[in-house]
Each structure stands twice: as structure tokens, then as C-alpha cells.
């Protein structure tokens, strides 16, 4: 095991940039594996997410004692036990709140939030909304299996309309929400999507998440092979994935397909799949992905299989002042204006009298 060098990076020297990585620590995937036995169902997509997470952690050159994984409740919530970092398995839906306080008190830490579709969007919906709008510097990884796994198979806020589950034997009458649209509406400064089985893509995505300053939200399409097996099979299976998923790259035209012969363009206000070379379509007609454009981001958050290829990759990435930066700045401004607080003066207040 590599002995970690105890450098606590300060906010003035932002550690989370590729240029800084080299000056910090050299760790390997193994350094991030805890001694706890992993207890998900065999075949669960969570294994892959864990493995990719452990794999990308050394990329950041960040001392592992300065990394914290905070989770809510659900199958996903167990992930922190398996990471050899600091970890906090909290209560259902509330992980973002604990992460917000931790980050406010300790801007030097790299804080990941692990959550599920029910945890993040049902019971914890309010906290997701507000942690994103505040641009809290947390990295939210939402495992979306479109079902409640831990409680054994009830409908979740991302379950398809009409889905038959134990709690909805006649089919759910609730409409699903798009996690990415929600994140965008909540002003998340980083939004991405990846797939559990798409290991390289997932690693690359988590790597981007790690470098981001501010609220990052990544939806990982995850297979629950016990209660919702094959939820994404139609577009994630190896044979079809290139034809049915659109891998986004900043500044590049939106091309997809095994033969890279299809693309997405705007027809008026509507997105439309076109074949390159047909009806005079060329690359120049296609949309160019721009991670800073909220309108493109919103359009991408609305399209899904089977009408469209499923967009994966980084949908939005903008640098905005983070919650802890702003909070620290206010403290510093107060000190600059009024000096370091004097307790005696504070207690005395504006008006006292003396009793002899």
C-alpha cells in the first residue's frame, strides 16, 4: 500500500485540477478497497459502479483521508462501506444535507454522495433540488434502477408509467420524472449520464465528475437483476448499444451508430434523428454538443429510447462559485470589515451599566 502523504490541500490551492494531481499522492485502486465483504445480489449493476469508482479514485491524486463517501438508504447506500475512505451511511434521502454541512465546515474535503432513484428523487427530492441550486461542491452519483431495490421491488419515481410492481399490481399511475431534467431545473453545474455495464464510459464520466467544482449530478443507469431485470437492455446490450445510445462529446457533432452514420439535428424546435448522406444530410447539419448551453442540455434530458438514442456522457459542465466558496468569502469579508471577533465586546453589547 502506498503511504499517503498528509497534505491537506487548501481552498486557495485547488487540488481538484489535473495540473495539481501530480503534486499530491500516488495511490492505486487497491488503496480504495475496504476490508468489508460486498453484499449486493450477485449480478447486480452496483458491483460495476463500485469497481469503476475505486478505479478512478487514484486519478485525482487526492489523499484518501480527504475523501468522504456519504450515502442515503437503499442498495446503493451500502457503497461507502466498501470504499476505504471516510464514509457515512446516513438516513433515507438526506445524504445531500449531511454533505452540505460537511462541505461547509470542511471545504478541503472531496465529498461524494451515493444515492438511488427513490432516495434522491422521492424522499430526498427536496434536498437534491436545494443542494444543486446552491452549487454545493458535492458529487452526487444516483444509481437509477427504476425500482426500489432494498425494499424488494416497489415502483420508484423513475419507473415507467403503467409499470406493474408489488405495490402497483394494476400498473403505476404515476408519471416518471427525468432525473437529468430535474438536475437541470435545479441549476446543477454539472450533469452527466452513464451506464453500469459501460465500464470505460462510466470511468471516464466519474473522472469528469471528480474534477468538477460545484454540484455534480450523474445518473448511472443500473440494472437491478432481481426486481427490474433488463430495464435498459434494449439499448445497453453490447450488440445494439452503439446504435441506440448517443455518446456526447463537447464541441463535437452528435453522431451515433455502429457505422457512425446517424446523427441528431434540430428541425425547427424539435430534435430529429437523421441519416448522414440521406436527403442531403451531412455532419454540418447536426447539433454540436455544448456543455455550457442549458437549452441543449434540456433537450438532451428529454429524449430517450425508443423514440431517440439515449444520450450518455457529460450534458452540462459550467464553473460557478460554490456554496462553500461563497460562505467562506462572507466569513472572510466579515473579518476584513470588523476584524476577528472579540468575545468581550460581543458580550458587552451596546449598552451596559455598572452595579457597585
Amino acid at each position, binding site marked *: 500500500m502506498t503511504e499517503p502523504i498528509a497534505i491537506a490541500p487548501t481552498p486557495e490551492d485547488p487540488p481538484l485540477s489535473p495540473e495539481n494531481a501530480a503534486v499530491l499522492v500516488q495511490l492505486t485502486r487497491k488503496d480504495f478497497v475496504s476490508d468489508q465483504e460486498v453484499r449486493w445480489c450477485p449480478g447486480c449493476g452496483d458491483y460495476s459502479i463500485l469497481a469503476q469508482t475505486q478505479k478512478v479514485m487514484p486519478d485525482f491524486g487526492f489523499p*484518501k483521508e480527504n475523501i468522504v463517501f456519504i450515502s442515503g438508504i437503499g442498495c446503493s447506500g451500502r457503497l461507502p462501506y466498501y470504499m476505504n475512505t471516510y464514509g457515512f451511511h446516513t438516513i433515507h434521502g438526506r445524504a445531500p444535507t449531511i454533505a452540505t454541512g460537511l462541505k461547509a465546515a470542511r471545504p478541503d474535503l472531496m465529498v461524494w454522495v451515493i444515492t438511488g432513484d427513490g432516495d434522491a428523487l422521492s424522499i430526498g427530492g427536496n434536498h437534491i433540488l436545494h443542494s444543486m441550486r446552491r452549487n454545493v461542491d458535492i458529487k452526487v452519483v444516483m444509481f437509477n434502477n427504476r425500482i426500489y431495490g432494498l425494499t424488494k421491488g416497489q415502483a420508484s419515481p423513475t419507473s415507467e408509467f403503467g409499470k406493474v410492481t408489488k405495490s402497483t399490481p394494476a400498473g403505476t399511475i404515476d408519471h416518471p420524472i427525468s432525473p437529468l431534467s430535474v438536475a437541470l431545473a435545479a441549476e446543477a453545474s454539472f450533469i452527466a449520464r452513464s451506464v453500469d455495464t459501460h465500464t470505460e464510459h462510466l470511468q471516464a464520466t466519474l473522472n469528469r465528475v471528480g474534477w468538477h467544482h460545484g454540484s455534480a449530478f450523474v445518473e448511472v443507469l443500473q440494472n437491478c437483476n432481481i426486481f427490474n431485470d433488463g430495464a435498459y437492455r434494449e439499448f445497453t446490450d453490447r450488440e445494439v448499444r452503439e446504435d441506440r445510445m448517443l455518446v456526447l462529446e463537447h464541441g463535437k457533432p452528435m453522431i451515433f451508430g455502429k457505422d457512425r452514420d446517424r446523427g441528431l439535428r434540430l428541425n425547427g424546435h424539435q430534435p430529429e434523428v437523421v441519416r448522414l448522406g440521406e436527403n442531403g444530410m451531412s455532419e454540418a447539419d447536426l447539433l454540436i454538443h455544448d456543455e455550457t448551453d442549458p437549452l441543449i442540455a434540456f433537450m438532451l434530458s428529454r429524449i430517450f429510447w425508443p423514440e431517440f438514442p439515449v444520450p450518455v456522457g457529460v450534458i452540462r459542465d459550467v464553473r460557478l462559485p460554490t456554496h462553500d466558496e461563497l460562505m467562506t468569502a462572507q466569513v472572510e469579508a466579515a473579518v476584513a470589515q470588523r476584524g476577528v471577533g472579540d468575545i468581550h465586546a460581543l458580550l458587552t453589547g451596546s449598552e451596559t451599566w455598572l452595579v457597585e
Partner: protein
Amino acid sequence: MTTTIKRPVEVLELDRVTIRFAGDSGDGMQLTGTQFTRTAAVFGNDISTLPDFPAEIRAPAGSLPGVSGFQLSFSSSDIHTPGDQPDVLVAMNPAALKSNLGDLPPGGALIVNEDAFTPGNLNKVGYASNPLVDGSLSSWNLFAIPIGALNSRALEGLGLTSKQVDLTKNFFALGLMFWLYERSMEPTIKWIDDKFGKRPVIAESNRRALKAGYAFGETTEMFHTTYRVPAAHLPPGTYRNITGNEAAALGFVVAGQKAGRNLFYGSYPITPASDILHQLATYKNFGVKTFQAEDEIAAIGSAIGASYGGALGMTGTSGPGIALKSEAINLAVMVELPLIVIDVQRAGPSTGMPTKTEQADLLQVLYGRNGDSPIAVVAPATPAECFDLAFEAVRLALKYMTPVVYLSDAFLATGAEPWRLPDVDSLADISVANRTERAGFHPYDRDPVTLARPWAVPGTAGLEHRIGGLEKADISGNVSYDPDNHHLMQTLRAAKIAGIANDIPDLEVFGPAQGDLMILGWGSTYGSIRSAVERLQADGHAVAHAHLRHLNPFPNNTGAVLAGYRRVLIPELNLGQLLLLIRARYLVDAVGYDRVRGKPFRIAEIVAEAERLLAEN
């Protein structure tokens, strides 16, 4: 203005006076009361106040729900309550008269703003005829004064709108009261200058209103007597006037400094706790970070996160917010992190009466959570004591790695009294060390004396570990479903809190150690009980008073103290919550005395109840 001719008036010396200012929400009664309080306090009187404001921000002008009141008692001797009944009622309109007259004893002075008794205003509150002229107020000593008209005349020439003029008439009333009670206008004039310095015309209008009221007292033939309440003999020291919420905020900041930890306060606005958030938000240069969360759950979650990171994590709310926080309080119980939970109680259940006081969250904070969930609970008895108990809450939270509830209430929070400034340098160092030593580190190892687990904060190399709400194996802290381990951990958590009893002061007794009656109380009922017991003792009864500041655990000697009396009476502003605990714990046949009207006890009520018990065999 012409110089006024001083009339000869009689000066009567009194030990204590209770005044109630009442008017429309827009009449500035809270400010008027606060100004009188400051002036009396600076003069050296002991004081106690009871603001009583409507929950509605802007109820219709002149309506009964819009009435705002401020009662204050000032005295030349030690007082504990804002007074059972006012001696003087200042009523700025018919609604204020109607809703407050019932509290004014016959013969009491009634100072009324005559101008507001228009047919429209009378009609609004259901007066068929004008009480100022129909003889219905003959049992009181009525002074009907055209305050509005006199005040407008005094402000002539300033070029103010009639609305602006109207806004100053409370200072006319205040000036008159200053004259009547021989108080200086100086502190208020200074306040006006500080507040309106940049708006000279407004400052001048308030000054003129104040002085006109004072001059009116001097020149009118209405008053034949002024009153003098000499300074009280308070223990020597530097004093300031303080409310419970202010004192608490200061206590927490000082405790944070004495603990060497940055204070983080996550809160969601709620009456009557919001002022603590407002105040702490101005202390950024003390390293204090405040966070207005999206709800009470997020507020406590953020505080737990801050504590996890090594800060002093605090959250604050009132009863409805505590209900929302219970699941997270339990998380802190399980992960054994320090956490301060402020509950400024108000009348419940549900939304209840938000601005009114009550002590009915005791069982909620003790037992309102799933599983056996022991936490420490402390409760201040007076506004000034809020400082001490805030400090104590932090001491316990850090030393025992536990959530501590600081249980205050609306009366303590908004009530004021003189506070002798503590000597900060002599306050105890309450710092605790983070765990940094790798060798032998186990997340759920315990200190042999306190049973506290180590505080190993993220960023400490070599101590990476995982915590959470699932049951922990003793010592290792790994997730465990082992039946015997769960039993062990439940008893350890309980023993840790129970052990705090060895670390807190004994319950003090005021009065004989043995006798006919012990009156046991907690929280804001202190003043009423203490005054009642003083009266009973003066009448020769063998009655004592003890007041709990620690509600979990109780002081070790509690049972022994109670055993010294033939009867035990527990007055509470709830339907018998401490009573239930005391009876269950000590098997004493204590009886309760409950009043839940959203107001503090009257001294006389407690005296009467005690006398009733004493007369029984």
C-alpha cells in the same frame, strides 16, 4: 416650544411597578416596551418582561387579533416574573382596551389614547357605546388623553405626512410614562439619534413626540402623583439587558470559542426560534457559519455533517421542527457525534399558537423517536440563564459525543432581564481532542469514564472508517445484526447518558431541606414558582423550591431531595410531563398543577394551589 411650569406633584415611592403597553400591531408597542425596559434597566432596577405579540404580521388595523402587548415589571428588589397583573395599562385603541382590560385589577391606572375611540374603531371590536364616556370604566383610574391630537400639534412644522406623525404617537405615550415614573429620556434620545441619525426629520419627530409626552405629564392637571422605584440591590458587576434568545446565541458562540471549534448553525425559520439564526448570522467574524436550510431535516442534516467534519454542529427550531428532525436526531445518537438541538417551545400541538409559550415538548425530545434513544436534555430557567445552559449543552455534547437538546420556550426567548456579564476568561475550557493516533484506533472504542467514542474526523490519515445508522458492532463499529451486540450497544448508549449525572451539579433546594411541600419545576416557570415560594415562606409555611436544569439525566440527588417533603407539587405549562417522569422514576406521589393558556403562570395561582395542598392532610 414654551418652557413648561413645574407643578407641585406628590412623589410616591414604590417597590415595584408593572406596566402593560397595548396597541395595534402598527402602533410600535414592542419598541415602546423595550425602550422603557432599557431605561429602567440602565437606571438599575431589576426587570422582567413579557412581550405578547400576535402571530399575524399585519392583522387588520384596529382589530382584536391585531393587538400587540408588552408587559414589564421593574423593581427595587429582586424580581422573578413580569408580574401577574399590570398596575398600569396603556391602551392605544379600543381593541387594546377590550382585550387587556380583564387583566387590570380594579383601581389600576388606565391610560387611554382617546383619539382612537372613534365610532368606526369602537364598532370594529363590538363596543356599542364609548367606554370612555359611558361609565363602564368607573372601577379603574381612567386617564383619557387625546394622544394623537397632542402629538400632531407637537410635530407641526416638520412637514411630515399624517401617517408619519401617527407612527410617533407611541413615543408620546412613552414620554408620558417616563415622566410618571421619573425616568430619564436620555437613553431613548440616544437610541433615536443612533437609529435615525441619517434621517434628521424622522429623528426630530421622534424626539419631539417623546418630549411632548413628558411635558404633557408635567403641565397637565390630570396627574397628581409621580412614582419612584429606586434602584435594586443587584450583585456588583457589569450588567446589560438581555432576552433568552440573545443570551443563548452568545452562550453558543462563547462555548464554541472555549471549545476551540467553529460553530455551524443549520436552521429553518420558525417562531420563536428564528432570532437565534438571525443573531448568529451576524457573527461571521467569530468564524460562525450559518445556513438557512430548505427544511428542518436539511437543517439538522447539515449540522450533523458539520459535526462529522469536526465543527460544533448545531440546529435550532421549535416543536413542529423537532418532529421533523427526530429521525436525524436518532442518526446522531447512533453515530455518536456531538450535536446541539435547540427547541424553543411554543404552544402546540401542530401549528398551535406560534407566538405563545408552553413547555409541552419535554416528552417529545426525550421519547419522540424510534427505538430506545437516550439523549441529554438541558433547560434554562431564566432569560439570563440561557447563556449558561447553552454553554452547558455544548460542554456535554463534546465530552460525551452525543446530541444534547437545549429546551427553551417562547417566554424565555423573548422575555428580558438584567444580565450580569460573565467573566469569559474564567469560563471552563471545554475543548476535546480529535483522535489522531492510529495505533489501537477503533471507531466504537470508548473512553472508560465518559463512554464517549473517539472523534476521528475526515482528513485524519490512517483513521479512515465508516459510520452510519445501522447498528454497530461494539468497538469495531462494523455493521452488526448480532442479537447480543445490539443489547450491549443499547445499554452502552443508555449508560453513557445516565453517567452524565455524575458530572452535573446537585439539585439545589431553596428553603427547608425537610418540610410540608416541595414545589419542583423546570424551565421558564422558575420566576413564578420562586416568587410563590417566597410568599409562602413569608407566611410561615415549610415550603421549598427546587428547579431542574438537567432533564436527562436528572441530578443524582433528585430522589433524595423529593423524599424530604410531605407533598410534592409540580407546576408545568403542559398537562403533566415532568410529573409523569418524576412519578415513574422516583415513585413519589407528586401532584401536578397544569395551565396551558400560552402564558406564564401567575404567582397567585401557584400560591393558591400550594395553600390548597398544605391545607389537605
